[in-house]
């Protein structure tokens, strides 16, 4: 056979730019629709002249869309990174219990008082990060045998961590006073309600460095997604990559959980959608998940705000209704050719 029989594959650079251009368009379209959609539709004329429409748009709707984009990007990128690190297509911050760990941390902080700070950083963010970090390290330790991360043990550990986290949050609600218990309950439902950009600025302070650092590991994660031993012999510092991904994912999930509650399945749905569109290369899947994650949660939040005329749905319910069936479909597909 000659090499001419194989068509020349597109270079990774051109595939990456094509993917990012298309996904940026999808994000732009979803943002425009989400900014327009709502109980009161805002047109351009009203935005120029009506002070109420201006307040509604700039103080409520725009910050909410930006918040959804930040949280969606972070969860989707964390999902893509964890899937590669654990070589498990079913991994996601929610299924691995990372969000659950973050929720325990955040609940402890809320029980101690919303306004508490550690060195100027809101305690709820610090506690959610610590909870998420504890969960990801625990799940990884439980699932790892020598050089192998057992896929079944990984998911089971995630389920158990989630159950224990759920019980811990309930216990905290039970022992704390009724006002704070109600605050925890409202926070747990998960909402992207935000007024102004102060919270967003605080989130960006943590998220931007985490995003940049995670994207810097895309090449290493691409090799790790193929095989850990092979990645090690190709020059990847496995220990450093593992530690970095643990810390960065815990930070991203911790910050988003602290602000928006535990929103599930974004990290599962989005990376797989990117894979279906652009292939398996992590150097495309990771940045692609980042952009599509923003578009996905912006759209899911628009649906949550407008699906019912009388009330808003929790955005976590919308993502779970989409993500649950997708998890089962992936589980079924995976059983065909791989040991779970």
């Amino acid at each position, binding site marked *: 056979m000659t090499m001419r029989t194989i068509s020349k594959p597109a270079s990774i650079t051109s595939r990456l730019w094509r993917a990012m251009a298309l996904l940026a368009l999808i994000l732009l379209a979803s943002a425009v629709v989400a900014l327009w959609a709502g109980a009161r539709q805002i047109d351009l004329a009203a935005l120029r002249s009506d002070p109420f429409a201006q307040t509604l748009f700039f103080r409520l709707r725009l910050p909410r869309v930006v918040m959804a984009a930040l949280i969606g990007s972070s969860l989707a990128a964390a999902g893509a990174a964890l899937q590669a690190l654990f070589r498990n297509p079913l991994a996601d911050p929610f299924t691995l219990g990372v969000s659950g760990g973050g929720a325990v941390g955040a609940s402890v902080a809320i029980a101690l008082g919303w306004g508490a700070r550690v060195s100027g950083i809101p305690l709820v963010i610090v506690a959610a990060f610590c909870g998420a970090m504890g969960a990801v390290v625990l799940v990884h330790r439980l699932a790892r045998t020598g050089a192998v991360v057992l896929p079944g043990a990984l998911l089971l550990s995630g389920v158990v961590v989630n159950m224990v986290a759920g019980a811990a949050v309930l216990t905290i609600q039970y022992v704390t006073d009724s006002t704070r218990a109600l605050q925890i309950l409202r926070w747990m439902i998960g909402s992207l309600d935000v007024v102004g950009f102060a919270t967003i600025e605080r989130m960006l302070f943590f998220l931007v460095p985490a995003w940049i650092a995670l994207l810097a590991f895309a090449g290493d994660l*691409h*090799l790790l997604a*193929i*095989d850990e031993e092979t990645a090690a*012999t190709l*020059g990847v510092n496995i220990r450093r990559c593992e530690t970095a991904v643990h810390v960065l994912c815990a930070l991203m999930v911790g910050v988003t959980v602290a602000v928006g509650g535990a929103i599930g399945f974004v990290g599962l749905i989005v990376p797989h959608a990117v894979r279906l569109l652009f*292939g*398996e290369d992590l150097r495309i899947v990771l940045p692609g998940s980042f952009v599509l994650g923003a578009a996905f949660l912006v759209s899911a939040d628009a649906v949550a705000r407008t699906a019912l005329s009388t009330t808003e749905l929790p955005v976590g319910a919308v993502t779970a209704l989409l993500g649950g069936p997708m998890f089962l479909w992936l589980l079924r597909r995976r059983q065909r050719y791989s040991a779970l």
Partner: protein
Amino acid sequence: MNEFHLLEACDVRFGYSPGVPVVSGVSLAVARGSLCALIGPNGCGKSTLIRLFAGVLQAQAGEIRLDGVPLHGIPRKEAAKRIAYVPQSTAMAFPFTALEVVLTGRSPYTPRFRFENDSDRARALDALDTVGALHLASRPVTELSGGERQMVAVARALAQEPACLLLDEPSAALDLKHRAALVRTLVRLRDTRGLTALVVTHDLHLIDPVFDRVCAIRGGSVIVRGSPAEVLRDGVLAEIYDDAHVRTTRVDGRTLIWSE
């Protein structure tokens, strides 16, 4: 340092659990431009030893040397340009195409934050062609048979253009034709490019007459080493495998081996 030897293990010790050594004091040298087979019974420490040579595991005592330099002192990317390793298991979780897998072999040559170029792709396709797997280039690896995945893994290692190839049971899932093709490839690369290869194998018929050296391990220690003609004999194999029923015979210049 012995300039004749490319790869050396010097009194290497390793165990996965404290007090349970798997490799206990192995000293072994692989000559530059030679094919060396590592044989021994199941659980004797062959795969652990080759993983120590690959740098996947770190020796708890002793030292692995590449060109006389301690392996742990060589930057990872530099070592990856000189040593390529094909693990025993080639199962993968994601449906990467075979070409994507082989292209990862070019990563030691690709600067950080850069992607593989046209020349890398040409080398990856060439490596697939060398192992007779060019037709698999665009197929997802999760849909390939064990033997086909093994060929892709060997192609990935060849794409690294290493001076030394470490293969852990590379022929375990290969059919007769591809097994012979693998041996021919190793011999050709040794003769044309001076490739050094250390191959863990249970397939003793792979060894004679093409391999230069055979090293037998038992209980984590080297018990026999020599040429194929010296090692592949009834009494020696009986000692290595603790099996008095091993028989050998010579047919057309090759050693046939079986157990009664």
